[in-house]
Every structure is written in C-alpha cells, then in structure tokens.
C-alpha cells in the first residue's frame, strides 16, 4: 500500500485564525492536486506559536459546528488532515492540540502532554497539559501523533509504538537556536537525530512537519522530513522557507524491515511494566 503524504511547513499569522484557515484550505487544494492522501500541518498551525495572552481568544473545539473545523472537516472528505490548534475543553482549560480529520470526521485529538517551560519557552504558564497518549486507526493504518516537546521524551513514542502505531506524525513549531559552525542550528540537528532514531528503534515511519517564519526574534527552521522504518531519510523540505513537501511511503516496507529486524516482536512489554512498577514503588515520590 502506498501512502502519499504531504508536509505543509508554513508561516502563520499570529493570533489570526481566519487568515491561517484560509492558508490551510489553499494548501489542501494544492496537496490534493498533487495526489496527496494525507496532509499534515505544524504545531499550532491555525493560530501561530507564541500566543501568550492571545490563547483564550483563539480557542476552538474540533466539532462540525465550529466555524473553523466545519470547512476543514468538509475538506477532509477528499484528503486526510492533521491540523494544529488551541483546544478549549468543557471546563475551559486550554490545550495545544492536533486534530486528525478523515472523511468528514474527527478521528483523534492529541493534547500536548509535555509543555516546555524553561529557557525561551513558557507554555506551562498559558496552557494545560494533556494527560493521555493513544494511537488510532486511519485508512492508512494505525497512527500516533505527538507535538514537539512530546517527542523530546522517549516514553511517548514508545507508548504509541506499543499501542500499535506504525506511522508517527510529529508536528512542531521549533524555534531555531544554537548557532555554531555546523550545517544546521543545534536545535535542528537534535530533532533530526531523534527522528532518525525513532524510525530506526521502532522500525516505523516518522513524518515531521515543522513550521517556518519568524515571531518577534524567533526563527522557525522548517526542514520537515520523513524517515522510513530502516531509519533512512526519504525526504526533507528546505530550511527556513515555506514549502509543501511530498513523499511516497511504501507501507509494505514495514513488513520487509520487520522481517529482517523483529524488534517489535521481541519487545518485552511485561518486563517493562514489571520493572517500571518496581522502580516507581521503590523510590520516594517526586524523584
């Protein structure tokens, strides 16, 4: 089975959801014209990233009656979509979220679990953290979605792997930082390393959509990419420039790689659970 995936690395208008929605719908048409089955947008693609006090003003609920999700759900009848937005729950908590839309329905919403609140990041001040991780079924197999800092922690991709994800969809709005003599900024190099590692360790596809552009002095570096189950790079978009990057994923590669390298078959999940419980039980809380 072939999956044509498209990665939209876009610049966004900070806090202007309708302008960003318009851009999403234009890219949907473009990706569709190029034969894409699935189009993924970066973290907070409908709102922009450093929202601060704009957060309560840009919230949406992924429902068919929502004015932003209505046209997106309509568009998803022809192409699957992963979009980034701020979700408000029924108790008025705000989450950094990503919604997977397919054939007019919301298949899954992931709420970002790890909110970086250190260095240049201040997400924990403005957002609630998600409290669940779950893979879900799509027309292209079982998928796991994570948002930026979520996949800086090895545990979440691992859980998704155990929950059946063969295709990891990662989204981010990653500020570029760490200029030295390297070809890439340190932050870009680090993300590239771990994406390659997850594809290799989990013998799975890893697709990453990262935004571009600037917000005040922050640059976002793009270079959206796809790694295959052998850990080989299939495609990488340009650094620092808007692009719609397409890749053809041969999902039968999962079969071939896992025939050669049965890491999933040999994974000792009961041992993991037993030892994790022992470790958590044996140490004082909070350590």
């Amino acid at each position, binding site marked *: 089975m072939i999956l044509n995936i498209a990665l939209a690395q876009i*610049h966004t*208008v*900070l*806090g*202007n959801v309708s302008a960003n929605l318009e851009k999403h719908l234009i890219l949907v048409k473009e990706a569709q014209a190029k034969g894409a089955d699935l189009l993924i947008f970066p973290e907070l693609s409908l709102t922009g990233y*450093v929202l*601060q*006090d*704009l957060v309560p003003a840009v919230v949406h609920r992924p429902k068919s009656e929502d004015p932003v999700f209505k046209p997106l759900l309509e568009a998803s009848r022809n192409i699957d979509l992963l979009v980034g937005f701020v979700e408000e729950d029924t108790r008025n908590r705000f989450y950094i979220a990503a919604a997977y839309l397919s054939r007019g329905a919301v298949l899954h919403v992931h709420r970002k679990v790890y909110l970086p609140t250190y260095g240049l990041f201040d997400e924990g001040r403005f957002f609630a953290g998600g409290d669940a991780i779950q893979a879900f079924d799509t027309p292209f197999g079982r998928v796991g979605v994570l948002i930026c800092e979520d996949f800086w922690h090895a545990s979440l991709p691992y859980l998704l792997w155990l929950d059946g994800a063969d295709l990891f969809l990662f989204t981010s709005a990653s500020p*570029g930082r760490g*200029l*030295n*003599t*390297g*070809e*890439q*900024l340190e932050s870009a190099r680090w993300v590239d390393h771990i994406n390659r590692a997850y594809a290799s360790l989990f013998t799975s596809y890893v697709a990453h959509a990262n935004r571009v*552009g*600037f*917000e*005040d*002095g922050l*640059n976002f570096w793009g270079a959206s990419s796809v790694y295959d189950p052998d850990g080989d790079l299939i495609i990488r978009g340009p*650094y*620092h420039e808007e692009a719609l990057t397409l890749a053809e994923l041969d999902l039968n590669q999962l079969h071939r790689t896992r025939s050669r390298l049965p890491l999933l078959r040999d994974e000792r999940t009961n041992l993991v659970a037993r030892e994790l419980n022992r470790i958590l039980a044996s140490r004082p809380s909070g350590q």
Partner: protein
Amino acid sequence: MTNVDLQINTGLARKILTGFIHTEITRTGMQRAVVALSGGIDSAVSCYLAAEALGAHNVLAVCMPYRASSSDSLEDAQAVIAATGVHSLTIEITPMVEPLFERFADMDNVRRGNVLARQRMVIIYDQSAAFGGLVVGTSNKTEILLGYSTLFGDSACAINPIGDLYKTQLRQLALELGIPPQVIHKLPSADLWAGQTDEGELGFTYAEVDQLLYLLVDQRYKPEECVAVGFQEVFVRSVVERVRRYQFKRILPLIAKLSNRTVGYDFLYLRDWGT
C-alpha cells in the same frame, strides 16, 4: 587558558538574519529600512544585511558626523554606501549639539557622548518617518551585555539583526558579506572624541571579553569556573558586575503595578501580535 570557540556558520547566520529583517519589516506593512551608518563594522553589517533583505533601493543609510569624528569614519561609511548601493544622507550634527555643550561648559566626555548618541537617535527616527522605513539596529551582543551604549541613543531601534552576535562573530559575518577590509580591521571606536577606542575605554579586548561572556552567558559557567579555566579573577569579577549593573539598559522602564493587569507583567503579547 581554555580556547573558547566562537566560530559560526556565517552563511546560515546570513540566511536567518536577512529572513528576519525581511519578515519583521514587511509584516508591519512597510518595505524599507533606515540605518545609522558610522563607518564601523557593526552598522556596516546591519546595512549590508538590510540591503540584501529588502533591496538596496529600500534602504537609507544616514551618516551623522560630529566635528570631532574622524575623517576615516565618513570615508569608510561612504565605501559601504558605494558597495551596497543604498540611498544615503549625511547630516552634520555639530550645529545641533554645540549649543547644549556651550550651555553646560563643564560637560564631561560621557555626557557629551550621550548627547551625540541621542542627537543621532533623534535624526534617525525622523528619517525613519521621512523615508518610511523602520530603524534597523546596530548593537552587538558584547556591547548589549556590557551596557556599552547610550540608553535611548545608539541602542534605540525597531529591530536588531545583530544583537545576538558577539563582536568576534560579527567580524566573521562581515567577511562573509564582503564588507570592505578597512572597515572590518580597524580598531572599534564609538568615535566620540579623537583617539577614542572601545578597547581602550573598556580596559580589555573584544577577543578576551567575548570568550568570557560566551562562557558566562551562553554556557552558564559560574564565575569561579571561568577563573578555573584561566581567566583573571579581577577581570571575571569586573565583567560579571558590569553585566549586572547595566541590566537597566536591556529592559523597558519599570512600571509600578497597581491594577490586576499591567503592561509588562500580565499583559503579554508579542510585538508581532496579529501579523
């Protein structure tokens, strides 16, 4: 003595910084920039980057010599203007500042230097309005951290592409941009009085202090760890104290909080809000 590596990928810096200038100016609805050009390396780098980002026809370089400014400065500024092809304007500030100097005959060099810097700020912001362009800043990371600038003077700008590059790194970027060698290699000077040099006034070289600042600020070394790797303790202490003392130059004026929502504390929006 540890050798601290401040080498950077100048091509990558150039790409990010021209993207920054172009994006941050055009998102305001403007297309143009103004740069105060001194003849030194910092303003030359800002001018080159602005010309590359926006097109030379969208950049105005303003030279603002004072009577005591060195003639080399103006010549070097002209070389930058000729090489980039930007619009230019030379405005002599002597007749604007002399009446103030005469009124306060006891004014020392620091006060005079501040007056010159602030007079230039008045002109560059007026030209910003006249030309329809944002002021692109010319302060580097070294001088921002050391507080080696005039508040509301040379540090005033709308956007600063070079404020996260140490002087040592700016020289590398200047080479990448093809800035005339005489601009890159001359002794840095605020050019406030004859024979003034930055390094003479500061009491250390940029090469030394950039390495120390890199360890203290970027690598989060403790002062005693900097001493342990070979920096003189007196030097380390003086730089640490300088960085602390001049924090006021790096932030907006303090607002006394009274209400539930106060600008600067809990009214938080980026400047790029809505764009």
